[in-house]
């Protein structure tokens, strides 16, 4: 009874304090500035949450501090922007990616046979090494003379010439098929070599049943088909996309950014993080290094410039909408909310943040996966002992966390300048959000993000009103963190441990 009563009293006290702060701000600032500042705070909070949600999930389950999260947020923005502005680069690269993956994913099909192979111990070690070397050689051969830079430049050109609702739909000439076809072929072979080597031929202690081989072959077969389609439609697919309605294109851009984040996240977890779980400090260094690599690659491909993504038509028409319905009909750039003029795209960012929170909540509380994650946060060994492949769950959660970041990136795309450093500030604020909310709690990440966003927005408001230094808003973050940690060292929703 006693702890229950204590909890009730704390909840009441917190509620009273929160209401008091809100009422105080409302009375002090007045209705319109209050609403405007609150909406700005929610916009920022939404963006913080998009980064913090993945950070928090990944840290909660795997104890991995992902310092590349901000860079991945940025990469999501770039991918979405590419697709939206001129997807020539994405479709030009697609066949090579699917071809290689198609080869690699043959591994589960051939592994059951390879490990039963009678092979002298010496060959068990050298054969995979030879295969890896050959795979790299083929990889290099496949990309030799491939003009990636030119593919990348198409969106840069488009970005400087595109008008709203008037996309650039000209054919960007690409390598003719007669010249291109050998690249995917080499990449499939290279992928097959990787599949061969990673299957550990001849190693009897490996475990792989010969069951469901057909089912395991499905991803590879699908990717093979996709490779052929992607190869044939390298030039026409971008045009088809550019001729679409801008809103639809933006929806596809979101989808592409999320799918890219998920796959790239899975790749990072499997190849870079998995070998390092026993050395957590190395993971920090590795993700930090990865963030630099991503940033440099982006700068190499698209120059160290800032791009402004054109807003989709739904948020682009001039004039102020009086209601939500009018906005959805006309696609106004601003909307009237209780007398405050507010950009509709920011409203969209807020909605996106809340939507992400709802999705994460449903997954965490209603699905078996969420159950596994909540159990795994406490005791991954016991989850494994129940017969659940925890390694695969780790991969999934990392991929999911990265997908949330890339979703945040494309969500921010039409609203923030797209440039290589755009994720850095969110990386820092994401970490602080997670610390305030409590490590590993997605609810905490949500509440923490809103508090930080409000702190920023009202900090800016007071700085302007009382002519204080604009640093007040930035200082608010640290002040909030200090206060929270003094009262609750484990964070608002953190578990004592």
């Amino acid at each position, binding site marked *: 009874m006693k702890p229950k009563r204590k909890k009730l009293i704390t909840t009441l006290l917190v509620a009273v304090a929160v209401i008091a702060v809100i009422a105080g701000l409302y009375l002090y600032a007045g209705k319109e500035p209050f609403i405007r500042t609150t909406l700005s705070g929610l916009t920022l909070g939404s963006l913080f949450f998009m980064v913090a949600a993945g950070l928090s999930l990944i840290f909660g389950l795997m104890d991995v501090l992902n310092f590349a999260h901000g860079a991945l947020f940025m990469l999501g923005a770039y991918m979405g922007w590419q697709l939206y502005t001129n997807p020539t680069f994405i479709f030009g690269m697609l066949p090579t990616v699917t071809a290689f993956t198609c080869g690699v994913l043959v591994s589960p099909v051939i592994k059951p046979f390879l490990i039963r192979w009678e092979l002298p111990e010496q060959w068990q070690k050298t054969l995979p090494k030879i295969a890896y070397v050959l795979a790299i050689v083929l990889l290099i051969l496949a990309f030799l003379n491939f003009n990636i830079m030119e593919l990348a430049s198409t969106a840069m050109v488009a970005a400087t010439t595109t008008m709203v609702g008037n996309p650039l739909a000209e054919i960007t000439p690409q390598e003719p098929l007669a010249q291109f076809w050998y690249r995917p072929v080499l990449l499939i072979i290279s992928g097959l070599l990787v599949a061969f080597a990673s299957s550990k031929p001849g190693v009897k202690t490996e475990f792989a049943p010969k069951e469901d081989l057909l089912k395991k072959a499905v991803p590879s077969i699908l990717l093979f088909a996709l490779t052929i389609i992607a190869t044939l439609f390298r030039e026409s697919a971008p045009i088809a996309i550019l001729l679409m309605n801008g809103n639809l294109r933006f929806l596809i851009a979101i989808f592409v950014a999320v799918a890219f984040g998920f796959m790239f996240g899975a790749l990072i977890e499997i190849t870079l993080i998995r070998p390092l779980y026993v050395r957590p400090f190395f993971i920090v260094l590795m993700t930090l290094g990865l963030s630099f690599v991503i940033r440099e690659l982006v700068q190499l491909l698209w120059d160290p410039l800032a791009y402004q993504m054109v807003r989709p038509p739904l948020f682009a028409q001039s004039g102020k909408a009086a209601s939500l319905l009018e906005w959805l009909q006309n696609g106004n750039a601003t909307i009237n909310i209780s007398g405050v003029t507010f950009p509709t795209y920011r409203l969209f960012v807020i909605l996106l943040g809340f939507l992400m929170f709802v999705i994460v909540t449903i997954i965490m509380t209603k699905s078996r996966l969420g159950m596994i994650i909540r*159990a795994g946060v406490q005791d991954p060994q016991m989850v494994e*002992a129940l017969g*659940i492949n925890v390694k695969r769950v780790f991969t999934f959660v990392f991929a999911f966390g990265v997908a949330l970041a890339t979703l945040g990136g494309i969500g921010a795309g039409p609203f923030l300048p797209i440039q290589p450093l755009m994720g850095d500030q969110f990386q820092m604020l994401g970490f602080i959000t997670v610390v305030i909310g409590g490590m590993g709690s997605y609810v905490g990440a949500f509440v923490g993000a809103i508090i930080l966003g409000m702190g920023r927005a009202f900090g800016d408001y007071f700085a302007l009103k009382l002519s204080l230094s604009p640093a007040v808003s930035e200082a608010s973050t640290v002040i909030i963190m200090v206060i929270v940690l003094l009262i609750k060292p484990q964070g608002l929703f953190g578990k004592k441990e």
Partner: protein
Amino acid sequence: MKEKIPREDILIVDNIHTFIGQFHILEGVSVRVPKGSITVLLGRNGAGKTTTLKSILGLTPPQEGKVIFEGAEIQGKRAFNVANLGIGYVPEHRAIFRALSVLENLKLAERKKGDFERSADFIFELFPDLKRLSKLPGNHLSGGQQQMLAVARALVPENKLLLIDEPSEGLAPILIQQMMEAIRVLSEKTTILLVEQNFIMASQLAQQFVIIDDGQSVRDGSMTDLVNDTGMIHQYLGASIKTRKELEMEHEAQA
């Protein structure tokens, strides 16, 4: 004419060596578990009983030696693969999932869809308390209830072998009785490898014993022989044996 039925061992642990970090924890443990009975691992605190169970399951894989389950070698396999062969695990210290409700704890243990529906009646008959508490989160359960849940969790899928680690640890005497009864009922369906410090409970339940001392299996045999061999009991189990009286006193002291 009578034919001798050959003893069939569902699990054979053959001279395993396990390292945790650089520590050589198990230095030659061999255990045979005959099908359809209860075998108990005895030994002092820190002797290596828990590590033996974890090595069987693959949570701390043995570097040397063999683990043979139903005739097939399983050492070196990942733990989830081992569990899916039909081995249930009840860890020590009631390691249930505190953030999950009782129902979720049980549902999580499903290996196939519908496992829980199939076994729910049996589980709730064995532990009626759990049915009443099914909506509560794990961290709201008492110690005894958590232990029941930990055992119940291993009963959700169909298992051929249960590894149960100190189910009576820290339980009140009346709950120990209930737990003993439950394990006896279980042993009618499943083979059990038990770790138990409570010698009275162990001797009443198990048919075979294996003594582990300092990371090695030093003695094994039938339980009836051990009960009559006070010399052996005192040599290897000595301080770790608690009589019922001691347990009751301990509980009074706690209360």
